[in-house]
């Protein structure tokens, strides 16, 4: 393929894409205009039906709970895949650890103090986001992502060996598996209680209380544990690819 032909091919396909995009944008409903029936319907019934004040959580963990199960296992499969590929690669006979690992950079005072100052606050915020999914914006996915990233602050403020000590791989793997499995166990529990798979069979409690919304709370908590574990595993595995020198403490 000559450069000239490539340029023309690029121009023609860009023009086509631009036209299609323009067509799509013109056909969009007006800004802030929501034509679908489901949002309005759920907004008006979810608080009474499920005793939650965050409708997004009610949709994710009750009205379309089976779809979320699939989504959860996408993350599970992704984290497991990363783990499998990178560990396999490191175990291969021709793999050699880098001859000269990166020197440990001395962290600046600013990085150390900011890191130390934010660890506690960020962790509390993550736990709050997970636990209050049915009341305020957020949920297991968001809170889990925050919690999984928190230990990175240790890496930024200190060094890799300390980061590995506060983020045990075993615990991260346990959290990922227990969280992913817990979702299914809750579903089977609903079956045993005489309902359908993943049906909300627990008492719904008082709207606005922390202990309310039935299985929504439990499923959300299980997701929070799983996402925390999955993010921790991803970071642990990726950072292992660029190791710091161990000895220079």
């Amino acid at each position, binding site marked *: 393929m000559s450069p000239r032909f490539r340029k023309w091919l690029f121009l023609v396909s860009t023009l086509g894409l631009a036209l299609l995009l323009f067509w799509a944008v013109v056909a969009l409903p007006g800004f802030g205009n929501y034509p679908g029936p489901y949002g309005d319907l759920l907004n008006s019934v979810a608080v009474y039906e499920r005793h939650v004040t965050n409708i997004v959580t009610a949709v994710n963990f009750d009205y379309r709970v089976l779809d979320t199960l699939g989504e959860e296992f996408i993350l599970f499969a992704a984290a497991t895949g990363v783990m499998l590929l990178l560990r396999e690669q490191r175990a291969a006979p021709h793999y050699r650890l880098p001859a000269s690992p*990166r020197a440990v950079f001395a962290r600046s005072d600013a990085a150390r103090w900011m890191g130390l100052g934010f660890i506690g606050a960020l962790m509390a915020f993550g736990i709050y986001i997970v636990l209050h999914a049915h009341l305020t*914006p*957020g949920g297991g996915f968001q809170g889990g*992502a*925050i919690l999984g990233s928190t230990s*990175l602050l240790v890496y930024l403020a200190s060094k890799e060996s300390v980061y590995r000590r506060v983020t045990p791989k075993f615990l991260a793997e346990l959290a990922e598996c227990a969280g992913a499995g817990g979702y299914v166990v809750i579903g089977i529990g609903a079956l045993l209680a005489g309902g359908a798979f993943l049906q909300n069979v627990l008492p719904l409690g008082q709207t606005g209380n922390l202990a309310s919304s039935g299985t929504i709370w439990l499923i959300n908590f299980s997701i929070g544990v799983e996402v925390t574990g999955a993010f921790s595993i991803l970071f642990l595995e990726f950072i292992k690819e*660029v190791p710091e020198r161990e000895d220079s403490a």
Partner: protein
Amino acid sequence: MIWFQLLMFLLVAAGGTGTVLTRDPKKQVIVLSFYGMLLSILFLALQAPDVALSELAVGAVALPLMLLVAIANVRKKLHK
């Protein structure tokens, strides 16, 4: 409120363009992280706080870290 939304749309457009125009990968990751933060403020302005939280955690923290590690890894292999 509509002015704030408009401002955020413009900032996001500028952020995206800035990310593409930054050619040094290491600097590009930092600009990308800033772009993720702008996006999450836009989501907040559009009354989607749930999405804003996800975008903040993934776009401003997780994605830049993975890209930085990937860049470090590629450089390590190039130096060999």
